[in-house]
């Protein structure tokens, strides 16, 4: 005797969150049954593996039918096929769009193209995330990217409205879209120690300070939050004076050193390295007009600034102290006229470096 057909349909669609997660994680039905058995779901129930299998199948089918709707979450709310209580809808969407941080680290900053998708099996092998799950996550990135690409207005808000995601998740997606759009390099070995959340934080800083939208200029330009503001990048070139003008450089150094003296154990190293570090930061700023260089923004930050500091054993406190004084001292320089640009630049740089300065 074999079961040819076995369905169970409810009026108010109930979904077991655990099974949903297994489905999202790309488990096959059989594997999911195994996991559930080990999880002890049968304890206290007079049920067999058969029952569990049937239940898992039913739920998997329901998820598959829902998947189409999850691709445009707004539809989920006014579709008629499944009657799902609103709080469950929120859960379904949030979980569907959730992603593994190991996975996203692999594709962050890559072009969301077919080519990348083809390489997902490597990613899967490397990260231990199932291929199915990788594909779902990748497709989610791509879908969000495509939708917001053509929309005007603030990025996070657009994502939140079109995909009904929580603020946190919408911000993460904004970061992913931002990285994909600007193709920031994140895969180099030196960057491996950085987590997705580090990058997401930086992306948030960049979006809210360096893009067109950052100025509060809401005349709804396309991609206002996705592209860095051209004018600003041009202006950044002016900062070069800080390293090209010897007087300025010395003046800057003495101001910073005066302020730091006696406040940190790493003072000697700071004093010794000041010129190098300053050159590093200002050069990064000057290069940003070139899109290719933009991609190397994070690797540059690490190579030109974070690594030297780390080898000198700066503490996080040292770093904060140094950057604060480094930024503020520039204001006292008489001949330095680019205070606004400088602040806009250093504000982001400071918070990014502070975020990225860890092991």
């Amino acid at each position, binding site marked *: *005797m*074999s*079961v*040819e*057909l*076995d*369905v*169970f*349909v*409810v*009026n*108010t669609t*109930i979904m077991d969150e655990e099974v949903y997660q297994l489905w999202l994680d790309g488990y096959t039905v059989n594997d999911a049954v195994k996991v559930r058995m080990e999880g002890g779901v049968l304890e*206290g*129930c*007079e*049920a*067999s593996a*058969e*029952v*569990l299998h*049937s*239940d898992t*199948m*039913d739920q998997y*089918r*329901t998820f*598959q*039918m829902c998947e189409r709707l999850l691709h445009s979450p707004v*539809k989920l*709310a*006014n*579709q*008629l*096929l*499944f*009657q799902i*209580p*609103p*709080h469950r809808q929120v859960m379904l969407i949030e979980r569907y769009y959730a992603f593994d941080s190991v996975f996203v680290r692999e594709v962050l900053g890559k072009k969301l193209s077919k080519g990348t998708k083809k390489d997902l099996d490597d990613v899967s092998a490397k990260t231990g995330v199932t291929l199915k799950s990788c594909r779902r996550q990748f497709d989610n990135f791509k879908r969000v990217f495509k939708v917001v690409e053509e929309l005007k207005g603030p990025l996070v808000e657009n994502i939140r409205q079109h995909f009904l995601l929580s603020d946190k998740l919408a911000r993460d997606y904004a970061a992913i879209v931002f990285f994909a759009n600007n193709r920031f390099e994140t895969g180099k070995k030196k960057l491996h120690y950085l987590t997705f959340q580090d990058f997401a934080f930086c992306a948030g800083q960049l979006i809210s300070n360096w893009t067109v939208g950052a100025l509060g200029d809401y005349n709804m330009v396309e991609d206002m939050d996705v592209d860095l503001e051209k004018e600003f990048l041009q202006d950044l070139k002016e900062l070069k004076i800080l390293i090209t003008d010897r007087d300025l450089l010395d003046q800057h150094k003495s101001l910073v050193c005066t302020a730091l003296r006696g406040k940190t154990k790493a003072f000697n190293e700071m004093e010794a390295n000041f010129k190098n570090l300053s050159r590093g930061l200002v050069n990064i700023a000057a290069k940003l007009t070139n899109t290719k260089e933009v991609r190397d923004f994070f690797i540059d930050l690490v190579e030109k600034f974070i690594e030297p500091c780390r080898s000198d054993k700066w503490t996080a406190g040292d770093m904060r102290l140094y950057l604060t004084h480094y930024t503020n001292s520039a204001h006292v320089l008489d001949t330095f006229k680019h205070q606004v640009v400088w602040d806009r630049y250093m504000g982001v740089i400071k918070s990014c470096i502070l975020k990225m300065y860890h092991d």
Partner: protein
Amino acid sequence: MPGKLKAKIVAGRHLPVMDRASDLTDAFVEVKFGNTTFKTDVYPKSLNPQWNSEWFKFEVDDEDLQDEPLQITVLDHDTYSANDAIGKVYIDIDPLLSSEAATVISGWFPIYDTIHGIRGEINVLVKVDLFNDLNRFRQSSCGVKFFCTTSIPRCYRAALVHGFVEELVVNEDPEYQWIDRIRTPRASNEARQRLISLMSGELQRKIGLKVLEMGGNAVVGYLQCFDLEGESGLVVRAIGTACTLDKLIPGSASNTNTHPNTAPASNACNSPSKEIKESPLAHGCRSSHNSPVHSACSSQRLSHSQNFSVSVPTLVFTGMGSGISVGKEAGPLKTLLRQQAQSALEQREFPFFTLTCFPPGFLVHIGGVVSARSVKLLDRIHNPDEPETRDAWWEEIRQEIKSHAKALGCHAVVGYSESTTICEEVCILSASGTAAMLNPRFMREGCLDAGGSDQRLSRQPPLGMVGSERAEGEVSSSWLGFDDASPPSCGFCHIPYDEFNMPFPAQLTYCYHCRRQKVPDVLFTTIDLPAEAAVTGKGCLIQARLCRTKKKAQGEVNATAISNLLPFMEYELHTQLMNKLKLRCMNALFGLRIQISVGENMLLGLASATGVYLSALPAPGGIQIAGKTPSDLSYDQHISTMQKRINDTIAMNKELYNIHPPECIEEVVGSPIPDRQRSRLFRSTSESSDELSELDLSHGKKDAFVLEIDDTDAVEDIQSLLTDAPMPAGFYSCNTEVMPGIYNWTSGLQMFTSVRVYRLNNANLTNQGLNKIFTDLCENLLKSLYFKLRSMIPCCLCHLNFTVAVPEEELIQVAVTAVAMSFDKETQLAADKALNKGSGENEEQLQFSMELCGESTSSNNQPTAKPSGLPESAMTHSSSRDRCSTWLELLRLKAHTIRRGSVKTSRRTQSLANSASSSERCSPLPEVRSRSLRSTRSLPCGAPVTVVKMTPLSFLPRTRIVKYLGIINMFFIRETTSLREEGGVSGFLHSFIAEVFAMVRAHVAALGGNAVVSYSMKECVFMENPNKNQAQCLINVSGDAVIFVRESDQEAIPPLITCGQTSTTGADGTT
């Protein structure tokens, strides 16, 4: 031109992409009614078109309004080739024709295509302007309300119950027409859907006409079915109970609206009067083959029809033999019809009620289950306009039922239903119901006004019995005397037949409740547990399952084989039920449904019922196992182990179901405890002559229900009896509306449909093998349900009715639609404790059931309720196997009694001890409780889609139904030619059922409703051809669309309610 139908197409959304090039669609809509079609403009290049059309107006007869659905077709405009259909929406406008139902249909409907399923949604507005029709000879019956609910709908009061209405219409099935060979599957499916929609409309209209003729204004317990007879046609038939309903005024409704039981019923036909006359004396166990119909046919037996009288009451083959012409064939039928015409009224109208729930005290006595089956050979319906053959078939069956009821001393049949099962050209027609005596007090017309004047009284409203003066007189003289004295909580258990001349052998004792009247030891019924019934402990679902192999055959040989098997099956199902009932220490079955399904090489039987312990009936005896050949020690040991297991199970079940009748020794002086009576019952499979002799020998020697272990079958059967898996903790189940012993429902409920198809891989299975498989699959399905619904714990699965079918050789299909309702554990525990403390559970049970029915009136029952708790007591086992000279006779007797419903195998007697404490338990507690009910969940507000609850029950716990919007009766076909791509058969059916739910919800929401009650899936025909990657499925669902309000916020929603209008069709409209 008495009506103007107006429709407006507002917008569409989520349309499918029809133009691959642009990924968009150029959609327009055709609106068709009858032969008139309107079109909207094309809304180019959009998946969310905004047509915002003008009002399309159709001026039509109201006859057409009733028959025709409004057809809305969404198409994709194509400049160069034919326009592509996206899908359709059929809207039944019947709800708009009644002033009390919906006034407008407005909302989003899923656009449905039989090949692709739901493809987007369309927003439609529909209104109807009806002009007054003064034509007395009209063909329409606009305004007659239809309810699937099998009790008087809440928020109505039954002024009169007129009685049984039935109708059937036949047509050729488009699937079998020649044109079907050349048209697309889509066209064919649509032709079928359209036809069935038309036929349903026509059927409702015709039934409505009958109701108007009778003077009624509504049909309650409306049951419509399809018979897909294949080549020989398509039959749509319906039965129902005609009533005159008065709308209750919301202001005074606080405690009456929730009443389910405002249902007086009466027979419109006075036919039973004659029977009533003889009933006090009538004891005849009239076997069905003696019925007049039968003899009428048997004269023709050799030529065209044939009778079999082994417990398949009627077996008529028509069209037997190849040389028989149509004209000849009609011969016997004509004769039959002529005969019937002689007693026109009597023959045409039956004292049947499709209702299953009645006002307290309405049922005087219940005789038992009456059922009749008849095996027919299908033949092409030659003239659709005169569906005489099918009519005559049902006529026969109903006569059969009527005579069975008469034999049980009853003048009415309640909880009546009809069904068919078809395999190739063989069709089994079945009808069943519960023979009952109805309270003559309720049938006096004089009571009508009294009922109306007082809300409390109106709960037990009077009944009109049309033209039944004669009957009344007789009935009241014979019954009134004790009626007034007998407490309602046990009165219905008292036997309606004469104890000295019983229609079947049964052991009678004095009622354990009132000690005044005789009761049987076991009671089987098809109705719901009466609200006033005194019950001990909780109830549970009891199923008997049976599989019988059959040789493949054709035509009459096949029919004969089937009809020969039927009595055995009925008998065995009955034995199983009885055993399982005893194993659970219960003594009554409610909601009994016995379904027999035919396949090419097997027959399936499934009986479901809810077992309870009725306090008025004697305690059931245990089950004893007897070895047939007490030879060696190990065998004896084996038997004693088995016996121990059975005893343990019984003890465990008592605990589980909280059945604690106080163990009372036969003490009370003068209590009429009859002598112990003994009997034994034989397992049905062991029919050999030597056993029979043993039967006689052992008669009177054994105390309990005895199971003979005489062969391996029996051992297996006992094993299977014991291996019925116990329900997991926190679960209860029943197949009736309410579960005895649970009363504190929360508003949490979950309606579900589950379908399984099993393939039997090994062809040569024995009956035992098949039985095991069948039992396992039912058990597994139940286990699966328990597992899936575990988050609802503590909960009860209600209305758990399985439907079995044998769609193909080697395939078994089981479908179930039920509802899981959770209840509040804390209060339940407290109540159980209180129950156990006191001696009498009865009042508690009473409270609960009243509350469930939404009646919070203990005071109503108080005067009549038993004034004391009843300690149950004293076991006396007895049973009723009287001498049977041959096994066949035994079998026949058994089979008849199944139909009659009350085979007694053992019983206990009990004595009465009045306990003072119980009167306190009659306190108005339920009122308090129901007032304090709080809904624990609220409708999600701001949700763009109205939440529509669905339930197979007639009520939603903790809510009040404020308006009935009309009947939902929908038929869908879904077909696929890409089965694998749609996820195989399971994926295909899963999405289809989900789509059906969605379409039902959408229609309810468009009517302005927020729930469907009395929902059922009446048909689910699934066919597959995996080799061709194809599958097809037909589903028919029905229910009542309603608006409910939560009990806690009923004040908040009045704007929604437009039920201020009261029907004025009043009480005087009839009789």
